[in-house]
């Protein structure tokens, strides 16, 4: 029996119900996202002299590439990311350094006041890769340090140093909201990894003055934050963005003005198809549209957290948790900004906002989650599975 079985033996990843559900939720979000992207970008595309589907086609190409990345990531044992953590972090730091160097203007041009993109034939946003690096690397180090995590200097300090370097690099772009995202993601993974609550309090107290000084230095980030604290006294630009977003969302009311009927994306809203794309959902699909949007990401989150609980290893558990938080928290923050719950910052909405770096990252995250939620099986014969899963997958 054994000999026969070995002759036909092969292995495969068997997706759990959660993994299948996550794929379905992701597919729905991607489809909705592409639909919304078309409506929010068509007019501007025409105004820029392109066809109305200019941005849609590009995003669609990104989505197809994303599917490939997703499929590959779903077939790679998630445990491998543990060994890739340092290279990933190193690559991220390297790319971010290239962005802020004074003589790299040719490949890292300043767009809308900051240098966030590398143009190497394809345009990539290194900070999206860095988000993944923060989560993977933090999860890896938490698992590696084990009980040492309970000490401040040997436990917490290395995290602060490395992520602090990343933060500093993106602040220099400048992209303050990305720095805060890094810190929050690290914090979530650390928190879930068992860092003392007291250390978090110290961390927070330390962070405030540093953050405050940064804000003062980075004029443009300051504009965004103060415009939230006191809209009446806000500098015109930041105040304008928030007001236009509220006009879009508010005028949608319960059922929305109808798909393609929104007018705020025709030049009133800044960045209608990335930083403010949820405004378009609010305007054209109304309150119901926003509720569906929030519900979609909440479902993604619930599935992600369930996947974390059923993860094969502690690293994968922290990884699943961090990655889920990356997608869900970014989405919530984005929606919070467009409805005026949070200060106006430049955050993308995963699967919706135009930007292929972010789209590919979101697909990659989903792929990793699916892998964590899958079991590695030995297949006997054509279809039958060996009820005993492979030993190494259980490690």
């Amino acid at each position, binding site marked *: 029996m054994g000999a026969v079985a070995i002759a036909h033996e092969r292995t495969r990843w068997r997706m759990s119900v959660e993994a299948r559900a996550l794929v379905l939720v992701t597919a729905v979000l991607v489809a909705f996202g592409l639909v919304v992207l078309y409506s929010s970008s068509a007019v501007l595309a025409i105004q820029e002299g392109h066809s109305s589907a200019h941005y849609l086609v590009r995003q669609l190409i990104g989505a197809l590439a994303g599917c490939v990345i997703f499929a590959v990531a779903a077939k790679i044992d998630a445990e491998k990311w543990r060994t890739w953590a340092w290279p990933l972090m190193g690559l991220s730091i390297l790319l971010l350094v290239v962005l802020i160097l004074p003589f790299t203007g040719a490949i890292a041009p300043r767009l809308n006041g900051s240098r966030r993109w590398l143009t190497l034939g394809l345009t990539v946003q290194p900070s999206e890769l860095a988000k993944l690096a923060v989560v993977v690397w933090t999860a890896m180090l938490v698992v590696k340090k084990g009980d040492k995590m309970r000490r401040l200097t040997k436990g917490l300090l290395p995290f602060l140093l490395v992520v602090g370097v990343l933060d500093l690099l993106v602040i220099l772009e400048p992209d303050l909201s990305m720095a805060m995202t890094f810190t929050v993601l690290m914090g979530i993974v650390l928190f879930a990894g068992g860092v003392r609550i007291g250390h978090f309090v110290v961390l927070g107290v330390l962070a405030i003055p540093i953050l405050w000084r940064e804000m003062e230095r980075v004029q443009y980030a300051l504009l965004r934050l103060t415009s939230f604290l006191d809209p009446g006294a806000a500098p015109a630009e930041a105040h304008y963005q928030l007001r236009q977003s509220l006009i879009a969302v508010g005028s949608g009311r319960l059922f929305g003005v109808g798909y393609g009927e929104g007018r705020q994306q025709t030049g009133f809203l800044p960045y209608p198809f990335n930083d403010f794309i949820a405004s378009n959902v609010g305007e054209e699909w109304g309150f119901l549209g926003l509720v569906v949007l929030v519900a979609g*990401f909440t479902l993604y*989150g619930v599935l992600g957290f369930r996947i974390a609980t059923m993860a094969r290893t502690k690293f994968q558990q922290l990884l699943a948790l961090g990655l889920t938080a990356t997608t869900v928290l970014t989405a919530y923050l984005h929606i919070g900004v467009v409805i005026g719950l949070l200060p106006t910052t430049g955050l993308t909405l995963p699967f919706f906002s135009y930007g292929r770096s972010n789209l590919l990252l979101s697909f990659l995250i989903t792929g990793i989650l699916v892998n964590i939620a899958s079991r590695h099986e030995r297949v006997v014969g054509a279809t039958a599975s060996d009820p005993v899963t492979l030993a190494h997958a259980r490690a």
Partner: protein
Amino acid sequence: MPRLTRSQVVQGALGAFAALLVIRAAQVQLWEGRAWAARAHKQHYGAKAIPAPRGALLDARGVPLAQSRELVKLSIAPQEVRDRRLLGKSLRKLGVPPVWIARATDAKRKWVVLPGRYLPVDASDVTAMRGVYTEVAIDRVYAHGEAMRRVVGRVGADDQPIDGLELALDSLLRGQEGTLLVARDARGRRASSSGESGRAPVEGHQVVLTLSRELQDIAERALRDAVHRMGAAGGDVVILDPHTGELRALASHRTDGSFSGVPALSVPFEPGSTLKPFFAAALLATGRATPDERIDTENGVYTLEGRTITDVHAEASMTLTDVIRYSSNIGIAKFTSRLAPREQYEVLRDLGFGTPTGVPFPSEAGGTLMMPDEWTRMSPASLAMGYEIAVTPVQLATAYAAIANGGELLEPTIVREIRDPDGGIRFRHERRVVRRVMSAEIAGTIRSMLVGAVEEGTGGGAGLGSFSVAGKTGTARVARGGRYAASEYTASFVGFFPADEPQYVVLVKIDRPTGAYYGGQTAAPVTRAVLEAAIAARDAALDRRALASRESLEALARAGPHAEDLGEAARVVEEQIPRHVVDLPLARTARAGALRAEGKSPRAVPNVRGMQLREAVRTLHRAGFRVQLGAATGAASATWPNAGAMLREGSLVRLVSDR
């Protein structure tokens, strides 16, 4: 695993975040939704004013004197245009300058506003294209004729009236602006029309004047010729219907062009001898003189109150009739002394001198009439000769109308009718008697005296042969710096025609003619020229039937013995004469009714715009009209009357084509 509880904390925090998002969304979209939607509407749409066409000003026969027409202004968004080469071609056909065509077809430009204004028909090719936006502009078109233009007035570029009737009747002529909701983009630029309708513009009222364009042209031409021939400084002509008070023509001319508005209404002058008949009427009415009463006229030279008065026609004595006929200054001064200053003042006051007549026109002057307590001892004689008083030509013509119509002073008018845009009559002038200034009998007596003045006396130059003209000349020295200048005169003639059943009162005034300065040699011939032209013109609003029957009767009377029964002859003549009915421009509905009453159903002129001529002609023929072609080739661009006008079967429609 205890750590999972921490994961649940993270989950719980995210769940709370999600709940906050939904609550905040509900607050913005459900509670405050209405307010945000209102703000959105406010910034997405702008109310654009659509100019309303001003009402037309028509002459008494319905000929447009001032008319508004819609033109389009073109704006082009080159990036939205599908076929820019075709657009360029169409713009070239429209006559757009090449520089602007280049701009309009430059894909790098976002918005190009073409400077010109075009007829909607001409621009229809272009306006049908995507990326071409139109805006209505209204253009005011005026009839030609200097004097008519001055009466009608002007409208400035900003649609504000400047002078004339356009100013006086602005509140009626001005329409009500409409509004159009247009979508705006973030730069406040107009993006497109929004499909949402605003308020439609309401056209202004149509004003039908009593003036006849034809008579106005005649009067103007005659006046201009006369002023030129006599080397005069200028002149005025007023033609008035003595039975209704309707002004038929108001022409003015000044060689140096130094006037604005209508001097016949706004510039008073010292009338001179033309006032004499009114004092004669007052003397007859009070029984202080009879037409045949003779008075010593001192052989033409008489000194009164230290001032020497002379007569041109010197006689030892004259009857009152002759005093008027030969315009004796001595005679009228002596006769008028029989009236107390107060009585003399009241004669003039009752005739309306010193007070504006109430013609709706900006800057109408009232003239000057002093109260008796301001008079000097010389004033009664001066006033008798038409000095120390200033009247406007319209005032004087109105006073003469009272003689012509049997003694009633009428309120003169320049507006016959005002119609709202739907054709409803909002105002129609009705004959308004201000007061009776003399009995019909005395008016008749004065009329016959004035016939004499034309046939044998000073006004001989106005005589017309077969039609009798009654009238009075006046020659007044021009006052300069408080003294009467030695050689500057105002020559005038006021007459009515025909003398026994007057249809027109004609006033002609020539300022400072050189050479023959007496009214009889200057103003009276102008009157004759005006009347001759008016009789010759088909459309001069004369009651031709009355004229013609009279002429025929006179001819029959001259034929002598064969015409025993004049009554019968009159009947025969009357049957032969086609009734000339002055065609009032009735409201469309009223006109349709009137035409239906005549048995032929009126029909609408079909719209043939854009058709090839051959097809347009066929269409018009099929609709039952006769066609007159304006050009031989091209596509039909317009008809006159316009498409939609109701015309009787067989009416002539003029077809205009573009080249």
